């Protein structure tokens, strides 16, 4: 007789936290073997997350019963800390596992220097553990701590190559992150002062549209927008993402930024739900349109491959903001937004990995001089193109489904009589066109006539992993139904 999945679920959740922490701790204590520990750890955590998601989907047939809360140390809230797993966090855990596994495999080929390996792996494993803990956290103060774990290890990963560009990007990234964390923490303190609890579910039950919630919402939203580089608080993104090593850029653009976005969504669907008014939605949506235009313009102007990709992250996150007003009109739209964020993370990570391979081969990433390498490396260019197509949202890719669903939601708002809905629809459609323009800019030199130049030899990991991840991004459309179904298992969400 096999026990019901519900009984195993809490142990599996706590076990995921324990496992990802154990991998990071062992790699820190034994840096000489850190890359091997990292590889086996990555496989183990990946397998654990897949098992957990199977347990979760099997255990949660009803939306109301789907949040599993685990009292750490046996202490229930409000005294203790609770881990919290629902459809939203499960989806992001799976996304993280996929991107993180790909990045780990890629790093095996990318970081070969013995000393650099010793620096990279422990920090990377801490970052991954931090992301897992962030998605599982159900406590406001614990969220602050996990955010700090994520940001400090991310900053260290940006800086660890020690070049002037990397260190100056890292300093800016760190200061902005500390500011964002403090702003977030002040919001947490305000909520704690008003309600006397830190648990998110308890806070949600007690929250109303009072002055404390308003100020806390402003502080926490601003802090997370700083961390997610959402327009107009985007200043750190391109320097940090563009100058970091390719696997780090992939994780930053794909996962770390998504983590902040996740938290914004979680807070606005929970604690701050009473504050979400249409005027607020329109304000955020306008910010999104601005980010879309500014980010695309920068991506069209930038001279370096990785800069283009970094700026496109600003633009793509504009989309996520545009979705906020849609969510107020059509409560179901949030699932589409999450799906879009998932596809974006997959595609963006593979673009960065492919860019890293090209940069490695050519020795630089100046677009104007990259033609020879692009022509000689069709596999990588194909990965770049495939992921780019997903970013653009051409039919049959994950990006298409996401943008189609967003457009549908936008048209729905127009039909519901909202004039400004036209702007959202135009932004969503126009943003796709702009994305097409900068993606074409990246791959176009491959189709020009000219000499081929393979450049530096590339390890098989660096050759194949971007292609594999890009394929996953393109095929994500087929997982759309499953993802959207998993997301319905989020209690409290509309």
């Amino acid at each position: 007789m096999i026990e019901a999945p519900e009984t195993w679920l809490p142990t599996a959740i706590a076990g995921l936290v324990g496992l990802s922490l154990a991998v990071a701790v062992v790699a820190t204590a034994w840096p000489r073997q850190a890359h091997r520990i990292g590889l086996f750890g990555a496989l183990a955590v990946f397998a654990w997350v897949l098992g957990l998601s199977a347990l979760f989907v099997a255990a949660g047939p009803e939306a109301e019963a789907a949040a599993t809360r685990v009292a750490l140390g046996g202490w229930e809230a409000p005294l203790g800390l609770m881990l919290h797993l629902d459809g939203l966090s499960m989806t992001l855990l799976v996304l993280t596992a996929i991107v993180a596994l790909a990045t780990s495999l890629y790093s095996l080929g990318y970081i070969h220097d013995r000393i650099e390996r010793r620096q990279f792996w422990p920090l990377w494993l801490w970052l991954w553990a931090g992301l897992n803990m962030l998605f599982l956290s159900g406590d406001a103060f614990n969220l602050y701590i996990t955010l700090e774990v994520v940001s400090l290890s991310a900053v260290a990963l940006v800086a660890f190559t020690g070049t002037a560009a990397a260190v100056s990007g890292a300093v800016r990234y760190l200061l902005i992150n500390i500011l964002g964390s403090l702003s977030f923490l002040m919001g947490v303190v305000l909520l704690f002062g008003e309600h006397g609890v830190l648990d998110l579910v308890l806070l949600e039950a007690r929250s109303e549209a009072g002055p404390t919630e308003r100020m806390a919402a402003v502080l926490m939203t601003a802090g997370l927008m700083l961390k997610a580089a959402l327009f107009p608080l985007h200043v750190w993104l391109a320097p940090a993402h563009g100058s970091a090593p390719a696997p780090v850029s992939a994780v930053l653009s794909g996962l770390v930024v998504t983590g902040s976005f996740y938290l914004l969504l979680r807070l606005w669907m929970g604690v701050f739900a009473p504050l979400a008014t249409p005027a607020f939605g329109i304000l955020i949506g306008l910010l999104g349109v601005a980010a879309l235009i500014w980010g695309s313009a920068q991506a069209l102007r930038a001279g370096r491959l990785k800069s283009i990709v970094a700026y496109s992250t600003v633009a793509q996150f504009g989309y996520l903001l545009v979705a906020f007003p849609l969510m107020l009109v059509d409560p179901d739209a949030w699932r589409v937004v999450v799906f879009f964020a998932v596809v974006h993370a997959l595609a963006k990570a593979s673009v960065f990995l492919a860019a890293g391979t090209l940069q490695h081969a050519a020795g630089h990433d100046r677009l104007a001089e990259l033609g020879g390498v692009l022509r000689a490396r069709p596999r990588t260019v194909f990965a770049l193109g495939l992921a780019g197509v997903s970013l653009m949202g051409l039919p049959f890719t994950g990006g298409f489904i996401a943008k189609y669903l967003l457009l549908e939601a936008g048209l729905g708002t127009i039909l519901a009589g909202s004039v400004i809905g036209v702007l959202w629809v135009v932004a969503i459609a126009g943003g796709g066109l702009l994305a097409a323009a900068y993606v074409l800019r990246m791959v176009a030199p491959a189709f020009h006539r000219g000499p081929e130049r393979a450049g530096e030899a590339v390890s098989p990991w660096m050759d194949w992993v971007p292609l594999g991840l890009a394929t996953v991004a393109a095929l994500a459309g087929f997982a759309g139904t499953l993802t959207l179904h998993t997301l319905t298992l989020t209690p409290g969400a509309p």
Partner: protein
Amino acid sequence: MSLLLVIFDLVLLAGIIGVAWRCLASTDLFRAVVLFITFGLLLALAWVRLEAPDIALAEAAIGAGITGALLLVTLERLRSIMAERHSGRPHTPPPDPSGPHALLRALHDPPPERHSFFPALIFALVVGSLLVTALWHQPQSTGLEPVVDAHMDVSGVDHPITAVLLNFRAYDTFLELAIVLIALLGAWSLGRHDLIPARPAPGPILPGTLRLLVPVAIVTGVYVLWAGSHAPGGAFQAGAILGAAGILLVLARPRQLPMAPGIPLRLGITAGVALFLLVGLYGLGAGHGFLGYADAWAYPLIILIEVAATLSIALTLVALFVAGRPAGDDA
């Protein structure tokens, strides 16, 4: 009586805010850092007033002490880098007085430009007044004090803050240890540090003081650690005090300090998190939940974790002060 206290509060707050203002407004970095250390000590006084002796201890040891030492050594490093760049060659005596401009740039920040004054002022005023408005509207809640009080008998310790830190919210404390470690990994990833040669003592006072202070600091640290289970104190304060003793040794160094050996050092800095995690995983396996203890085992396990954490924190703080990773770590 209460009126006197109000006057005390007002004077103290005015002092804190005034010192912070002078710190932020000063163009001389050294002066700013000294004011910041003063600010930390005044804060410790405020924490005592708010009936938080643990925090006062931590603020004095960590906030003012360790942070202050880190800031001062940073200024010294910036000055030395500038001197090196200015003279164009490494390992030369300080540059001649005719060319101190680079040095001045390193340790001075020109007064801010006029054009950012009003935007910054208005922004800060808006944020501050909104915060004050929200805070003044809040009810007189007692927070979680009654809940913690009701569970003290099963927490394994007699001091509520230690109970919260190492039992009720042990996960936060674990991650806090992890953050100290990640900061060190980050600092180490930037490069190695050189040998730390002996420093000629300028007189008999320094070595004598050192001989007196270091043992006192160690005894104090151990006492603060032990006291944490029933009175203000605990692993972080104790780690900071021991770390301060280590920093003092690094600073004064009557003889050349040996290069730290790689493997023991790694094990030392990870001991705290590793032991904490092992206990946590054992709790998960034994059915007390991740990071949970059986009631009877809570006290010894908490003490065990605290000892390891104190050691790791002290080592990590000294390593952060030295900044680069020791060459032994690459072997």
